[in-house]
């Protein structure tokens, strides 16, 4: 298996959304340069070829590098189970959908539905992300089942909707209903939480460095130093969040609220109090 870099450089903007779920190391592995350029993509409702939109350099590789504005390209890294995708620019919806391993690095902003149905691996977004980061699709009782999603900027509504396992971190602020219907797992929002965080959560942890107004069914328990949180924060420090995580956050005290009282009440909301 080759480990040389495969480069995809966007030379033509799609007129309508481009669905390119085959841009994933395992799928492209072993394919030649022209083989990759001839892969079928869906341009709106019309079959097209990857080469119509990307200049392909190199052959199938575990290390894929994409360049250009991909904000209208959907499902990059679908079902990815190993290797690495680096996106030098913005990316469209459903990046890393169904991902079980490997790593996706987005140097720009991501659209809605980052890592839906994810079970492993890591997605890092250095800019902002849209709605539904690591969330369940409508009707699904269970969201992501594992893996890590790190957003350095802000993320919008319903982060980690119904997540069962995994670790989601937001460097900036969160939209409404962060961790809604959470079943388990950890969500850390370094900036401000939006309204109605943790609504309907059964288990799991939502932590924030800023204070937040909580739903009437969340109840103050105590102020303490949650040891386990330190390990998650150290992990974030080691992954590009160093400037945002001060020592006081590692050693300080957090207000603990339990909720959602309407559900099992086994979830916890940790708000930094110093």
């Amino acid at each position, binding site marked *: 298996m080759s480990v040389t870099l495969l480069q995809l450089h966007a030379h033509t903007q799609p007129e309508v959304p481009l669905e390119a779920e085959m841009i994933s190391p395992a799928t492209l592995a072993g394919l030649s340069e022209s083989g990759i350029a001839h892969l079928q993509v869906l341009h709106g409702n019309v079959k097209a070829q990857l080469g119509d939109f990307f200049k392909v350099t190199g052959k199938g590789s575990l290390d894929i590098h994409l360049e250009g504005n991909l904000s209208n390209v959907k499902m990059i890294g679908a079902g990815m189970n190993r290797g690495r995708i680096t996106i030098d620019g913005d990316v469209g919806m459903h990046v890393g959908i169904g991902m079980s391993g490997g790593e996706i690095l987005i140097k720009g902003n991501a659209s809605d539905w980052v890592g839906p149905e994810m079970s492993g691996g890591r997605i890092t977004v250095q800019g902002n992300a849209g709605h539904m980061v690591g969330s369940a*699709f*409508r*009707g*699904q*009782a269970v969201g992501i089942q594992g893996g890590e999603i790190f957003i350095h900027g802000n993320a919008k509504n319903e982060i980690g909707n119904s997540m069962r396992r995994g670790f989601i971190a937001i460097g900036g602020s969160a939209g409404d209903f962060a961790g809604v219907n959470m079943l388990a797992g950890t969500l850390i929002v370094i900036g401000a939480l939006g309204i109605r965080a943790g609504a309907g959560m059964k288990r799991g942890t939502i932590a924030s460095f800023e204070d937040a107004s909580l739903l009437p069914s969340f109840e103050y328990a105590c102020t303490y130093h949650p040891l386990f949180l330190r390990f998650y924060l150290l992990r974030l420090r080691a992954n590009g969040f160093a400037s945002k995580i001060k020592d006081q956050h590692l050693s300080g005290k957090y207000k603990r609220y339990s909720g959602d009282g309407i559900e099992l009440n086994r979830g916890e909301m940790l708000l930094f109090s110093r």
Partner: protein
Amino acid sequence: MSSELKIVNGRLYDPANNVDGEVHDLCIKAGKIVGSVSASATRIDAHGMVVMPGAVDIHCHIAGPKVNLARKLLPEDHRLDVHPKTAVTRSGTGGIVPSTFATGYRYATMGYTTAMEAAVPPITARHALEELDDTPVIDKGFYVLLGNNAFLYKLLKEGRKTEFKEAIAWWVNAVHAYTVKLVNTGSDELWKGRKNANITDVNETIDHYDITPNHVIESFVEAAHELGLPHPPHIHCNNLGHSGNVATTLDTMKAAQGRRVHIAHVQFHSFGGQLNENPVSGVREIIDYINAHQNITTDVGQVMFGKATAMTADAPLAWMLRNVRFDKWVNADTECESGCGIIPFSYQQRVYTHTLQWAMGLELFLLSEDPWRVLLSTDHPNGGSFMNYPKLIRLLMDSAYRREALQQVNQKALDKTQLRDLQREYTLNEIAIITRAGPARALGLANKGHLGIGADADITIYTEAEDKEQMFNAPRYVIKDGVMVIEDHEFATDHKGKLLHSKPGYNQDIAAQIEPFFEDYYSVKFNNYAISDDYLHHHEEIPTHPKV
């Protein structure tokens, strides 16, 4: 393709005409089976293949308001099972509650050419008719829910038997139904009117009406008999799923007093044991009674492991399940006529009750002495999808396969059944009976379920294979109304089947007695209630045989 077809060299299974695997040619002209065709007829060489009438599903839930609520409820399930369009067929979604197009096409790809929707409230029957018109290939009809009807109860309370019969006939005509359906008789009033209560005994009095479910059932059986409906009252007994409901089911069968009656998904009504304790199999008592009583037909309502969806006019049942399994739950009350409950479900081998139900269904099949009266169904999607039929057929035909399956399930539950001791294997002829000839006869469909002269040319041709699941999963050819819809396993054309309905005769004066009740208690005008013939589209009236 010429409208004439000739199928040669195939081994025919046509139990209604005592043809059991003999090689005969079959001639088809203008949608019917005929004695001979011209030399120009298209020939199908069925050498080494099994030829059967198209299969008939006597009890499933495929169209109408409750089915559509379940469709809306399950986007996550549709997402996992898409149904792409082809050059000749429409797209859709599958899963446990498929879209209308997917439903019709998927029945066809298993060799089914007729299916009956088993429960539609009259006030929303227009909806069912519209969906059935969008359900391709198969012929179809529906049973109208009248067993909790407020006006009919009023007539029974007042002892007006004649008007009761006339009103039933009026309703069947007004909505273009096939026959009448009774579900958990008497329960609606308690469910809606007494804070979600339920009927527990067919001899208890129904609130406000001074009548018992038993009396209601008797009266329907008698009225349907006199009206000569092609299929008798189709009854979902009380106490479904409750330990010890065997007694209720026997009472219900006895209420028929020897007259024709169909007991729906009887597996769900064959529970022994004590109420509120773990159930045990009560199949022996039930099947002995059915074997001994020619007036009774039944479909098994086999449970298959995997996804299911409880979808029923029995609202208290869905509520009971909701408290077992806290999932999204739907309840839908229909004024003066019905209730409805929906809850996604899944049957698992490790769960005692689930295995018990699976085993009870197989017991019913294997202890049945008359395949003509104990028919194949999963009560789709309640016991599992109709897509499980081929697997179920293999379980019945292949005892070695069945023994393997027995290893995978909850043994404590198996201990409460006789299934381990049952070695019987169904023959192809018996399968043809429980999936074709039997349901057609029980439904009074003279032109279906057989391959005799004059029969509808609804025909399935299978490549014979050891693995019966594989065989019944993929017919080589499916012919509907003489049209080759599936050729070499692929759709050759789209096709629209017929609506099957009955029109029992009645005295028109009854309408004048029903109308005032509508003005008082219905939210639609009486004048806008009966459904015009425009909704029949391509249809066939199945004759009634009134007793007078």
